[in-house]
């Protein structure tokens, strides 16, 4: 796997990946639970539309960072839930480090001048 970096050109995509993977680190979730988890923990800050998550979820699944599974559990019939894979866990750690480094550099750049 190549080194994970956060670039200004792909901030939104990278941020969404980080949010999804972090939510799945807390346990397997289907679409609605995923949206609810991010909404609640982010106190509404990340108010993206759920429809934008599908391509990201499918891309992460294709890269085998997450695993999707269909189940017939519950009264509402067939639904797909996702869980983090071992590879995804490793990728999440790298992504977290990159975001922390990015955040630190951003803080330095936007620091208030005291003069």
């Amino acid at each position, binding site marked *: 796997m190549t080194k994970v970096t956060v670039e200004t050109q792909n901030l939104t995509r990278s941020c969404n990946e980080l949010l999804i993977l972090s939510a799945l680190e807390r346990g397997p979730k289907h679409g609605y639970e995923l949206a609810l988890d991010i909404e609640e923990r982010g106190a509404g800050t990340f108010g993206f*539309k759920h429809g*934008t998550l*599908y*391509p*990201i979820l*499918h891309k992460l699944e294709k890269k085998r960072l997450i695993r999707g*599974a269909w189940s017939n559990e519950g009264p509402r019939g*067939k*639904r*797909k839930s996702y869980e983090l894979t071992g590879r995804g866990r490793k990728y999440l750690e790298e992504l977290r480090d990159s975001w922390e480094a990015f955040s630190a550099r951003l803080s330095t750049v936007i620091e208030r001048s005291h003069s």
Partner: protein
Amino acid sequence: MTRFNEAFVELSARLAIPQPARSRVLLEIAADMEDFYQAFVAEGLPEEEARRRTLEQVGPSDEALQDLVEVHSTTVKRALDSFSEQARSRWERGLLAALVLFALVIGGPPLIAGRLLSGMSSFAWPVLFLAAVGVAIGAARVYSLFIKKDHDTRRLRSGLNLLLAVATIELLLGFGGAWVDLFLTVTRILDDIESSGIYLFDWMLKSSATLCFSMIAAMLLALTWMVLSSRVAAIEEAETALLLRPRAPKQ
């Protein structure tokens, strides 16, 4: 699930992904929409407002749909999906069945008489082993689909692609083995040119036996794959059709 039918018909038309991936995406979105809708209703929103909010929240934008198309359009996937389309046409299955029947009629009697087994080269053993693996996979899928009635299409499809891979390897092994045997025969002829006729006939006997095994096995596995793929595709289409069925008028 009927309250989002109009939206799904429109979404299905905008989603330029080949089957069966399209059915899976639509089913996933349908399940999420139902969850969001129920949550909005539980919050106290009127049904029509809950429906509108759900579509706004969960319905993918044009950009998201384009991204989905890119994710699901790899070369390998396109090739596999086009095979799935072929699998649905009856005449192709009929043609393959006729080919298998022909191969069995021609290769069957010497196989039963044991002449093929006694004359085969060492490459025929991995061919036979792989054929046994393929038969086991096929039998497991037939059991899941027709006896156990397991309709988890995703799980079924993963096994079917493996079946196709085994059939391809069978062919490669058969033809590759025949060429390697030919190379070995030529090196023996160079050492003993006087017996070249015997060596050549020996190669022809061994290679034809190996090729006979590999081609019959590959065709049988391909036929099994086609029949099972067709059945799985029919299940997926039925699920999507249920999703896109016109909404029943309220009593």
